């Protein structure tokens, strides 16, 4: 490894996570939901990588696999240089300490019968970050302040907070164990726009102060443009395009990325109904189409796309899984 390219904080290599479809008395495997295939990602410390796509594209499966909440069939996941998939139970606990996740629905990830302070304290206690009860309360208070909640509210229960405040509690809980990377799985998608802006600002502030890296999993491209340094677009389990945010939004290489960008409703009064929407629905990941997975919906489909599967070809800043981006093409 050269000095100019340090080992990234997170490096995912050829990840494959498929779920078996079982049927019959013997629960035999009759097929596979191909949730994520050949996914490779890199994320440097202090940066934000957005993983975007529509439902069923496998973005959440990738996020969960990185946290070892799913068992991938293949691939490597290096976090701080250690392969998480090769760790023992105890090793994984330690290796994963600096890796946290914040989900979409805070009410589902908070225990309704537990004071929020105790929930934030769980990780702190289990990693022995504090020794005494008093230190623990100070630590919880600091975390609540960091997410702009009143430290005095640590003895209250989740239902006493609004949706936005609950998401702050989940972020405080993630922060309490000094993470280096937070996987944000649709963390702002359920929030009203004025509250979403508050949480996005909080995430930006925390990144600046603490040098956090985010893997930001979302279907909302306007949020991506605002927050992410790099974007990976997924479709039916595979990355179809990847690159720096600015390039990807200004010069999308893959027809799917172009369709996705064109489909975002704009709030510019001069722009409406400009692009014809891409046809059809996302096919099932248990029966992905032959050839290029996007070909049944692609406005630029060629004969070849129906038979052959494109690889990820390098494009200017990034890569694209489309024959139109294949090296040596004249156009």
């Amino acid at each position, binding site marked *: 490894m050269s000095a100019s390219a340090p080992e990234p904080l997170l490096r995912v290599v050829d990840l494959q996570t498929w779920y078996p479809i079982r049927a019959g008395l013997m629960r035999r495997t009759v097929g596979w939901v191909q949730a994520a295939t050949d996914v490779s990602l890199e994320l440097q410390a202090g940066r934000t990588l957005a993983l975007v796509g529509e439902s069923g594209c496998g973005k959440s499966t990738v996020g969960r696999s990185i946290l070892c909440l799913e068992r991938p069939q293949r691939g490597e996941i290096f976090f701080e240089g250690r392969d998480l998939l090769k760790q023992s139970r105890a090793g994984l606990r330690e290796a994963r300490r600096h890796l946290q996740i914040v989900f979409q629905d805070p009410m589902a990830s908070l225990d309704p019968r537990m004071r929020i302070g105790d929930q934030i304290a769980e990780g702190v206690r289990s990693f022995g970050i504090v020794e005494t009860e008093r230190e623990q309360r100070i630590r919880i208070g600091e975390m609540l302040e960091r997410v702009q909640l009143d430290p005095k509210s640590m003895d209250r229960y989740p239902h006493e907070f609004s949706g936005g405040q609950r998401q702050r509690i989940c972020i405080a809980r993630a922060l309490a164990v000094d993470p280096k990377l937070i996987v944000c799985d649709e963390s702002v998608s359920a929030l009203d726009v*004025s509250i979403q*802006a508050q949480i996005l600002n909080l995430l930006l502030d925390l990144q600046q102060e603490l040098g956090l890296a985010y893997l930001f999993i979302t279907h909302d491209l306007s949020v991506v443009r605002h*927050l992410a340094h790099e974007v990976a677009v997924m479709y039916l389990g595979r990355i179809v395009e990847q690159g720096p945010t600015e390039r990807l939004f200004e010069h999308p290489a893959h027809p799917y990325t172009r369709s996705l960008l064109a489909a975002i*409703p704009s709030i510019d009064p001069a722009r409406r109904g400009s692009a014809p929407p891409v046809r059809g629905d996302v096919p099932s990941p248990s029966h992905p189409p032959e050839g290029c997975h996007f070909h049944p919906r692609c406005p630029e489909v060629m004969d070849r796309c129906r038979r052959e599967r494109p690889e990820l070809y390098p494009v200017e800043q990034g890569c694209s899984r489309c024959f139109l981006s294949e090296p040596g093409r004249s156009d």
Partner: protein
Amino acid sequence: MSALLEVDGLRTCFPSSAGALPVVDDVSFSLGRGETLALVGESGSGKSITALSLLRLVPKPGRVTAGAVRLDGRDLLPLSVGEIRRVRGRRIAMIFQEPMTCLNPVLRVGDQVIEAIRLHERVSVSEARERTRTLFVEVGIPDPEERLSAYPHQLSGGLKQRVMIAMALSTRPEMLIADEPTTALDVTVQAQILELLRKLQRERDTAILLITHDLGIVNELADRVAVMYAGRLVEVAPREALFSDPLHPYTQGLLRSIPGLARPGERLPEIPGVVPPPDQWPTGCRFATRCPKRFDPCADIQPEEIEPARERRVWCHEVERMLAIEGAR
């Protein structure tokens, strides 16, 4: 030309330990034939309860306590149960965010639409079936003949929403209430459904009352926009005017807090705080607790409706003050 629908001083209350809470309070707007009016607001703004109030579908113990809802000049609120049922579905149809809550999971979708048609009109099964097939073609369902005998779970979210729209249109209503019709859909499918609604409106001249929290969808579909906050209207304006020159500080804050406009990586201009719960609404302007332009009268005195321009209405002391200064010049 008179409006198709006129809502006048609508008030809907829910009982609480602190007395009746008006979660919809003094809401007035009109909807012309073939027009799309968007009712926008965040959760708790009362936009959905407003829509349900129009058809007298407010869940108990809520109750419409004041106002009038006139369809072609006839008030719907005093109608008998039998009479309002003939309006629902037939003259005003409704589509919801989650089609699965409206489709019966154990019946074929074709039969459900046929049943809806035969509920309102005396036609034979074969005629209703033929009409359903035509509707399926019109709303862009591929292989319509095959889909008629499909069960809801065999259809994707986008197709289910198309079935819902077909069912809503089956009685040729003059007005469609669409409550977050695309919120549960993926963005590429959402674009298809928005396109479909636009096409149907062009061809059928149906009026649409669009309930949504998404200002992007408002811009895509609406002719006029009514912004709600904490149970009250704060601003009503034509689409272009609202997006290019919003007057109410809440509308301004909402538009600014959408990530699309800010420079990437910079902090977004946020509206501080949260929408207060109904029992803590200020006695004056309900936005007063979060408003950056708040001054003396805002917390105590409710702002009156003012018309700063043709077709524009706004409820704000600050706008009123600025207009007074301009007028004095």
